[in-house]
């Protein structure tokens, strides 16, 4: 009788651990999906702000064209290509707005301040969104490497999430 109670207690313990861990895996997968959607939205916002700046006539025509092209490529890209294109957009922005003097000069024009603020805000939010997404990915991957998840297949068939690697630096002079 006693061994029976002991066995039942062990089984119940394992079942509790399984359901608790499965809940953690599930929540982390959701967080990975949601943060990925947020990152998408912020990247879209940033390329939009870049297009607006390029179309505003504030920049010289060469910078405007480069920026417009980079923003367009960033919006059209998929997967790894997109990460590449978004990094190119960061570099195009840095080239177009490379000095504090240049940014200060632009800010003297009507409406420029708002465009630059919007762009600065978008750039910073891209950085935050990417980092928070990668945080979620790292948490999910490290949980999936633990033995209860691997041995009991608690992650189901969900693909292993990947971190998003792109150059999200922005022109330091942006307001």
């Amino acid at each position: 009788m006693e061994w029976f109670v002991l066995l039942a207690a062990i089984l119940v313990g394992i079942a509790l651990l399984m359901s608790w861990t499965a809940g953690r895996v599930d929540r982390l997968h959701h967080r990975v999906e949601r943060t990925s959607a947020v990152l998408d939205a912020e990247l879209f916002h940033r390329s939009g702000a870049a297009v607006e700046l390029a179309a505003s006539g504030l920049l010289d025509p060469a910078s405007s064209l480069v920026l417009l092209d980079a923003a367009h490529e960033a919006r059209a890209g998929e997967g790894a290509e997109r990460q590449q294109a978004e990094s190119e957009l960061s570099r195009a922005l840095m080239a177009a707005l490379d000095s504090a003097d240049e940014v200060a000069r632009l800010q003297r024009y009507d409406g420029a301040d708002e465009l630059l603020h919007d762009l600065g805000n978008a750039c910073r939010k891209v950085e935050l969104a990417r980092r928070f997404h990668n945080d979620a990915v790292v948490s999910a991957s490290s949980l999936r490497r633990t033995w209860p998840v691997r041995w009991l297949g608690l992650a189901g068939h969900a693909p292993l999430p990947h971190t998003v690697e792109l150059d999200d630096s922005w022109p330091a002079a942006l307001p």
Partner: protein
Amino acid sequence: MRIGLVCPYSLRVPGGVQNHVRDLAEALLDGGHDVSLLAPGEDDDALPDYVVSAGRALPVPYNGSVARLAFGPLSAARTRRWIREGGFDVLHIHEPAVPSASVLALWAAQGAIVGTFHTSTARSRAMSAASAILRPSMEKIGGRIAVSEHARSTLVQHFGGEPVIIPNGLYVDRFASARPHPRWRGPAGTLVFLGRIDEPRKGLAVLLESFPAIMEKRPGVRLLVAGQGDVEAARRSLPAAHRDVVEFLGLVDDATRSQLLASADLYVAPHTGGESFGIVLVEAMAAGAPVLASDLPAFRGVLDGGELGELFPVGDAAALAESAVRLLDDEERRSALRRAASVAVRRYDWSTLCRDIVRVYDTVRATPGAVGEKV
């Protein structure tokens, strides 16, 4: 936005984390946000009305010093109720790994949660064991902030990922508006030390050891020591000839503190460790005191590797004395440091930091789920 802030340490005791959280609460209120701050301590009238008590704070040795923490079933119940009834859009927990209101809040909550990490601790077996226990709740934090490069690397070591850095802040103008006062000026220069005098990591012993050598080269130099602790014991550690020269001021109020810094020819930070950020250096810089600090990673970061103030090897009294004498002799160098520092401290002003922190809130909130009690 309705924001719930959690501070693990009692607000009645001064400290870096507590000051940061209070200043943040006030900066957010100024920005038109709605703030409630949960912290250990009795309900009392001396605290602002946005503060909510997480239960009685007990003094416990933690992380190398004695901290007043709130834990136990009563604190847990209060924390749960605060979360349930708070209706927060975002929950911002400071030091989510400290076993006090912070750990309790993180355990009890779900939804949009931001965590700020202040401490940096070297990797230890205890910490590694703790990180295994804490991991499931850490997974709930949607946005992680570290206050310094040092705090960030500690965090990455234990939990991985890519935390963002948003430094400790201060109201720069409160310090910058302080003016030098003749009562603190010395004929051969004034050195200022701030911090608990019986806390070895604040390094007063190193400064006292170096002081005779400084006095020999610059007779008439003053050393003002402001901070709590056993004055007699500190005085006994000095050679008899110098005992009456060092002036111990005890604990001073904020206005006196700024005035002291504004009057200093040199602010000396001889800390020997345990510093994650070094807000006191930024305060000194904002008040216009040239800084001479020990070469800790956190201080090196704040001083831009020595551009904004001078560094000396940690615990090296002879090097401290040599640098102090050289700087006191060199008015031009001190003016240059003052000028560079007064520009650099702007990045630590709450107006800048509050904007950055609200941006973190917005990003974390964009992943749906309002703050509520864990089901």
